[in-house]
């Protein structure tokens, strides 16, 4: 397993370290805290889910839309309260990616989800949901940045 995450953008690296420096038995609790911090959608998307892209890799209705403003990436993610794990993943990406440049987002390894130290606690299937979410954000960034 590759633990080499030195190339990650600093703010994302900090989140990884938050997880990996937490004892495994408390990592789910940390993910739960992230899930509670998933930012509310801005009003322009709240009533317009059709503007957002569904993420079928997640096991619950999850939507994502990415904006690029002045060279900075801003992902917006919605996930229902009854899917806290997915919300937690969304929150990690929303917080970890917000404000990065398009190139920084594109440089994040596709298997980033597996670097949080959660593979023993969460089935691989669910981690694939996070991988799908990241892939969709990267694809949206590609379209926006050209």
């Amino acid at each position, binding site marked *: 397993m590759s633990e080499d995450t030195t190339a990650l953008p600093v703010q994302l690296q900090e989140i990884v370290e938050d997880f990996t420096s937490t004892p495994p038995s408390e990592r*789910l*609790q940390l*993910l*739960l805290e992230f*899930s509670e911090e998933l930012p509310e959608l801005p009003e322009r998307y709240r009533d317009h889910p059709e503007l957002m892209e569904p993420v*079928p*890799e*997640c*096991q*619950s*209705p999850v939507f994502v839309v990415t904006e690029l403003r002045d060279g900075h990436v801003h992902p917006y993610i919605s996930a229902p*309260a*009854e*899917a*806290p*794990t*997915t919300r*937690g993943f969304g929150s990690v990406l929303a917080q970890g990616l917000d404000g990065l440049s398009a190139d920084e987002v594109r440089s994040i390894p596709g298997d980033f989800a597996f670097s949080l130290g959660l593979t*023993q*606690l*969460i*089935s691989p*299937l*669910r981690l*694939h*949901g996070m991988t*799908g979410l990241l892939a969709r954000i990267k694809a949206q960034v590609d379209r926006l940045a050209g």
Partner: protein
Amino acid sequence: MGIAADPNPKFQQYAHPERLVSTEWLAQHLGEPGLKVVESDEDVLLYETGHIPGALKIDWHTDLNDPVTRDYVDGEGFARLLSSRGISRDDTVVIYGDKNNWWAAYALWVFTLFGHPDVRLLDGGRAKWEAEGREYTTERPEIAPSEYPVVERDDTRVRAFRDQVLKALGTEKLVDVRSAPEYAGERTTAPDYPEEGALRAGHIPTAANVPWARAVAEDGGYRTREELEQLYLGEAGLSEGDDVIAYCRIGERSSHTWFALTHLLGFENVRNYDGSWTEWGSLVGVPVVQGAEPGEAPGR
């Protein structure tokens, strides 16, 4: 044995009414000695966001599966797990969960492999409890560890393995509880679910397609006996006394159907093929049928 069954009139029509409890019944009996409530969810964090007061968490991935082999924990592992949750062999265990009790039924089926005598399902699961505005807490119950005995897992009665399924083609009835597109072979995963590693799409020859959710009523609980009979005896062509094997993708949705056939309709020999499509769809040389028709058993 255990606590008196829920006298709810809906359940009395079922073959084994004592295997279900209603949300009202559970609310009234919470905290009673000898009753243990277990939450088993697809979402590993849902319990932490709030659960029925006193409920214990059992996770299908980290608790019920062996971490290395694709199999369930053994007798010692199960004894260790239940002891750590303070559950005794003579406790009445009520299991509930998210997603219409998929994982709760799965956990109940695993309890059955170990022959836990009194294990019941909360009809309607988390969704019904929640819809009725019943109490949740984030407080974890204090657990006094118990000494659950080591009981060997019995894989012969309610579990089917791939070779047995292959042999059963043409003699036992198969029920494929996945969605119609999965059954027809248009896809290998449930709609909105990620790819899960089956190399071929379709179904096992002769299997009738009865998506699991058709057994579910509007309130999230099971349909009435009459409705279930119409579904399984009528549409799916099962007859009383048939030996039945149910399967899905990894065995969780088919646990929900296994419960309905065994405990609600009273079929005496229903087995869950937990290898399900993630195994069959990748096995070399086994027969697969595509399209909406069940197809024929291969000649031997």
